[in-house]
């Protein structure tokens, strides 16, 4: 058994304290239901504990491993939902966002939450809302050049946070 394997209940408690909040955030994002998300997180830790001997920190981080398990749990829950007789009469299921797209979206949104408010604000205003830099600068009471440099430092911060989160492109 590799050192660091997740074998006893204390390991699970520590893993929960460190990662449950992120796992839950992604589960809510992808399942769209807090009850199902709780179920998914619970199932993730139970599966992790059952397979704990196979976790090897030499190969990848605990966080990555837990996310991989959660991804499978979410797929299973999606399948189970699909066999429930709730499909519309014409047999066409409501389209759900593909899971990996949801994971990508969640990672970027999580990274956005982690960068500073000033940086996030200028990215939202200039990029997502498409507002002119001069207008944003006037609203914030700063020179236009400051908005521009915040956009630069904001993107850099986003890149660094994504790297810390283990994002690989």
């Amino acid at each position: 058994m590799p050192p660091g394997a997740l074998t006893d209940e204390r390991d699970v408690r520590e893993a929960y304290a460190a990662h449950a909040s992120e796992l839950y955030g992604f589960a809510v994002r992808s399942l769209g239901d807090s009850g199902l998300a709780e179920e998914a997180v619970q199932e993730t830790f139970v599966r992790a504990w059952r397979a704990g001997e196979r976790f090897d920190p030499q190969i990848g981080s605990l966080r990555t491993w837990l996310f991989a398990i959660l991804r499978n749990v979410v797929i299973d829950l999606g399948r189970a939902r699909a066999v429930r007789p709730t499909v519309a009469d014409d047999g066409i299921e409501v389209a759900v966002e593909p899971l990996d797209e949801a994971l990508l979206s969640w990672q970027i949104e999580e990274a956005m939450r982690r960068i500073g408010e000033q940086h996030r604000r200028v990215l939202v205003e200039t990029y997502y809302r498409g507002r002119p830099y001069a207008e944003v600068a006037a609203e914030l009471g700063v020179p236009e050049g400051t908005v521009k440099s915040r956009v630069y430092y904001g993107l850099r911060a986003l890149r660094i946070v994504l790297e810390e989160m283990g994002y690989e492109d």
Partner: protein
Amino acid sequence: MKTDGCRRWREALGAYALGHLPDDERAGIEAHLEGCAACRAEADSLLAVSRLLPHADPARFGPAPQPPPELGKRIASTIGAERRSKSRRRRLHFGLGFGGAAAAAAAAALAIFVLSGSGESSPERHIAFSALPEGVKIGATLEPQAYGTEIHMYVKGISSGTLCRVYMRGPGGADVSAGSFRYRWGGDDAATLSAALDLSRAEALVVHAGERTFVAPLEQGDASDRNTPQEEEST
């Protein structure tokens, strides 16, 4: 060519990567990037980040939802219950010489029988739900634990894939979640759950199966209402 002159270009690289620069400024930057490998590398990495932005939804940049505080305890008690029931199954498994997952399920069912039939002063309670639709059977064995109550549920005859949420009703009608499981045809039809409520204080066991809700009141006092649990799996 990395000089102080780069700084003024650098701070415009964000707007450049997002495609926000007017044509003349963009042309100026691109001329600089032609001759400056360091700025070129920086621009490339910002362009890579900017390509991710369309995947995010700015309506979701607010605080992330947090798991409810009891979820961690529920997971800990589920794992604790599974560890205990596993070692129990293992003993029976060896003792009876069974093999395979179906045998493990049978062994679990047997474990319940062995314990209930033993006649010793086991504080376990067996619950059979009444007033169920034709063909549906739901039963449970409740076992007091240090953290509350361990619940072994068995379900038959409902649609495969149905999500069953289980609660214990405490004093004053407050429902304490014991977690949930999904019933599957052909799968192991027993599930082990746990609730942070003392068995002695429980007034009812509640199961939401799909759209339906079933309630089995628990009579307090001695465990003499030994309702026959569901018959053993014959497969």
